[in-house]
């Protein structure tokens, strides 16, 4: 059996997967608990994959942009992961191996144009990340989080496989282009097609954390290491969104009457429930977990208007900013967890005053996520996703989005108020942190600077992606 492989397309994914193996081997023969150990080959592999991606620029601008977001996000996570306590609980070799394997899955997932590739990539993304959640040794909460994640993942994979088998039965092919053609000419009843499409799409929404697949997110994020949660909220979500968008736009346009209202309803429910859940959080990580559910709704909303002007570009532009802002926020919280041990609102009070190098980037990332003062890039991207929704005729969804922006302000601004508030009692003085923590801090500041630059010059984002 001869399977043709287009190496220009899978090149970056193969390089990342190879990097994963090298990271594991380096840790086996050269066990260092600092960034010099397996972190270095991981960083190099991601850099090389990025170069390869830039060189080939395959297969099209859209996949290129999504792959770029995945690679940049993973690189951010790898550098910021230095903050983690590799000394005791987290084995660095396994950590980097799993992280890069999962990233290779993400890269394949956004490049997939075939349902089998999609499901393989989906599993390659999911299984290592489940292990990542439970990797912390001797931590029962982490194990339970991983277990929740695993069960939810299995359920959703089962649903997707069910949908895919139905789709295969309906169309007789697994290739996106062929499926598009077959769906146009099929003479099967509409309801069969509808069930097949809905089951396929809905299962993919699991990774995105859309309602009703959001239930695992708060538990998993609060149970895993902070940077792993950041990875799940950013990179894994980016891959899922990319896969869903490409599937909807290339394979399923004939069934658009079925999935467009569905996606709109799911998006509206997701952002509303995510925001409502975030309202009562008193811990920054819990808040970000719920807020990432709400953001998934904003990411998904323009998919309901995929065929309007800019309907395909808008989610990717929103995604880029969301990934950057969310990673900055999670990395800042990871540093805070390492130095102070907790991210409850009480412990964060006055952070922007006592530790401005962490507090101000965190606050700026939150403002970006909220999209509040008109100067930040977050507002631009909120506008970017709102416009195709209105152009596509889903006015009710646009109203729900606007209401949710206000709802989001309620908790983002509350956390910002906490950050700039005057702390009671003794100001916290952190001991001089080791180099690894400084690296993570530098990454937070670099990311925040990126957000500032984009805020000053939104054209940089809007005209280059994708």
């Amino acid at each position, binding site marked *: 059996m001869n399977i043709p492989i287009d190496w220009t397309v899978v090149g970056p994914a193969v390089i990342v997967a190879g990097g994963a193996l090298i990271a594991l081997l380096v840790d086996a023969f050269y066990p260092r608990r600092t960034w010099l150990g397996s972190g270095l080959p991981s960083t190099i592999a991601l850099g090389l994959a990025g170069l390869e991606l830039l060189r080939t620029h395959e297969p099209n601008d859209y996949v290129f942009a999504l792959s770029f977001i995945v690679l940049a996000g993973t690189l951010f996570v790898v550098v910021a992961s230095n903050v983690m306590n590799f000394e005791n609980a987290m084995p660095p070799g396994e950590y980097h191996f799993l992280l890069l394997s999962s990233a290779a899955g993400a890269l394949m997932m956004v490049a997939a144009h075939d349902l089998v590739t999609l499901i393989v990539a989906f599993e390659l993304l999911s299984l290592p990340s489940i292990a990542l959640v439970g990797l912390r040794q001797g931590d029962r909460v982490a194990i*339970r989080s991983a*277990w*929740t994640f695993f*069960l*939810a993942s299995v*359920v*959703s994979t089962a*649903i997707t496989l069910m949908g895919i088998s139905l789709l295969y039965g309906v169309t007789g092919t697994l290739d996106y282009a062929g499926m598009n053609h077959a769906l146009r000419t099929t003479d099967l009843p*509409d*309801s069969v*097609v*509808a*069930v097949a*499409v*809905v*089951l396929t799409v*809905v299962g993919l929404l699991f990774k995105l954390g859309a*309602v*009703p*697949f959001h*239930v*695992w997110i*708060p*538990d998993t994020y609060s149970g895993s290491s902070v940077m792993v949660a950041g990875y799940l909220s950013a990179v894994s979500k980016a891959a899922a969104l990319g896969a869903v968008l490409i599937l909807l736009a290339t394979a399923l346009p004939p069934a658009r*009457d*079925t*999935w467009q*209202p*569905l996606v709109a*309803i*799911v998006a509206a429910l997701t952002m509303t*429930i995510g925001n*409502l*859940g975030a*309202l*009562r959080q008193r811990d920054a990580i819990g808040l970000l977990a719920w807020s990432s559910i709400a953001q998934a709704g904003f990411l998904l909303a323009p998919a309901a208007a995929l065929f309007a002007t800019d309907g395909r570009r808008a989610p990717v532009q929103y995604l880029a900013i969301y990934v950057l802002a969310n990673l900055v926020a999670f990395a800042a919280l990871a540093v805070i967890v390492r130095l102070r041990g907790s991210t409850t609102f009480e412990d964060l009070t006055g952070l922007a005053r006592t530790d401005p190098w962490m507090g101000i980037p965190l606050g700026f990332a939150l403002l970006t996520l909220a999209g509040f003062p008109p100067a930040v890039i977050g507002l631009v991207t909120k506008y970017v996703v709102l416009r195709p929704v209105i152009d596509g005729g889903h006015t009710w969804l646009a109203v729900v989005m606007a209401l949710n922006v206000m*709802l989001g302000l*309620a908790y983002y601004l509350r956390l910002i108020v906490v950050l700039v508030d005057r702390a009671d009692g003794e100001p916290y003085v952190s001991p001089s942190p080791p180099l690894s923590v400084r690296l993570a801090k530098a990454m937070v500041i670099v990311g925040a600077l990126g957000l500032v630059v984009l805020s000053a010059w*939104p*054209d940089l984002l809007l005209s280059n992606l994708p």
Partner: protein
Amino acid sequence: MRRHWPYVALTAVLSVAAAAWAIPQLDDDHGTTHVWVRGDALLGVSLATHVDGLAAQVMLLAVGVGLLVQIYSTAYLGHHPRYRSYALIIVLFLIAMLTVVVADDFFVLLVGWEVMGLCSYLLIGHEWQTTEARSGAAKAFLMTRIADLGLLVGILVIGQTYGTYRISEVLAAGPKNSTAIALLLLIAVVGKSAQFPLHTWLPDAMPGPTPITALIHAATMVAAGVYLIARLLPIFEASELAMTLLAIIAAITMLLGALFALAQTDLKRALAWSTVSQLAFMFAALAAGDRDAATNHLLSHGAFKALLFLGCGCLMHAVGSSSLSAMGGLRRSMPVTFGAMTIGFAALAGVVPTAGFFSKDGVLEALHHAADGSGVLPDVLGEIVFYVALATSLVTAAYATRLWLVAFFGDAKEHDEAPQAMIGPVVALAAASLVLSIGQPFHFGIGLLSTIIAAAGIGMVVWAWRAQGNLDIDAPLLARELDLDAPYARWLPALVGSAARLVVAVDRDGVDVYPRSSATIAQFASRGLDLLQSRNVQRYATVIAAGVALLTAAAVIWT
């Protein structure tokens, strides 16, 4: 000794730069447009400048007076604890004024216009420990700010009408929709230049430091209104209604201002009213369609009124008060101030050969011309405005003579002459008031008429001075300024107060209900979600299964 020179040097650098920019353009009638930053689709504002002869003259006036005032202030306010912020705000003001003058984009102009208003507010309130300064600053700010809304709305209308905010493009496109635009701009101009009925803020701005009065409230900012209309005269000329209104406002203001100036017992306040009256002269010339006459008077008035205010500052520095009763007989003890202010008062009264005579001559000629019916104005109105202007000239000559006599003649009082740094700028402005008359056009008939009128005004006052020995004018109504401020003082607060109460009530009972109740609902829903989030995996699986079943069912029913 405080260090003053950095601020003077900063102003000097700014002045030299502006002069180097302006002087080559002095004879350029068409002007040079330069686009520094082109507006794009996201932000349709271009950073563009347009400098022609008119703009160059006003630029030179602004930086010239600005630099002299900055030098003057080193002696006048140099020991003030807030001198530093004062000097820097002057620099900011000059930049804003230059922005207004050179701007070729309405929004850039608006920014400069508003920053000028802000600087005016800050500088009037420089002595904020006194009640008068605070309330005067607030009054000036509120009145001009409300009038500025006219400019903002006018700019929006211009953008809607012409599809561009560039001034040169708007002027090149020819007048369209000009009555609405001209009336809106007129509101802003009337507020900024303290014309009737928004004139009451300027006399109340007098608690500000005297050099500031000379710079902002005599020479530059209040004249920006004149400049704006002169710049946009083609739009105004296309609207007979706006020009008629402008002429009526100018006529009322010039006579009222002159009469109020006559009745004042305070030198500075009298000069403030005189400014209001002289600005109205410029507007009258604009209403007659003569841009050159208006700007000539703008320049010469800028010089001699700045001179008078700075001289007034010298007197205040000597006697410690701006009240006329505290002055008198200062002729011998302050000879330089006396000489310079004599030139200033002569220019105000319109005596040959000062710049004031020639520029007023030009304005009167323009009005006389308008009375022929050759301009936009109806000839009856032109004639009325012409006679009002003649009457105003008479009153102007009278009050100028009165102020001059009361301040410098009579019982001699011994005071020290002002310091060098204050005398220097005054002398320079006095020279300017004479030099600016070189090469001015001259109309024989009108010139003779205005000289006779000025001589009559001066003669009457001198005769009264000889006969009575004093010049106290017993006109309580004029001294109270006809109570024109009363409506603002009485009705506006009452109106605003009740409107505010109404808004609060509506906001509380009609608007706040929704956010409050929705916040409650959101909290409630949030609590419900918390209960669902039980860390129980079976329950999660149930949620997922139920959700999938619902979505699938919905899709099947739909299709």
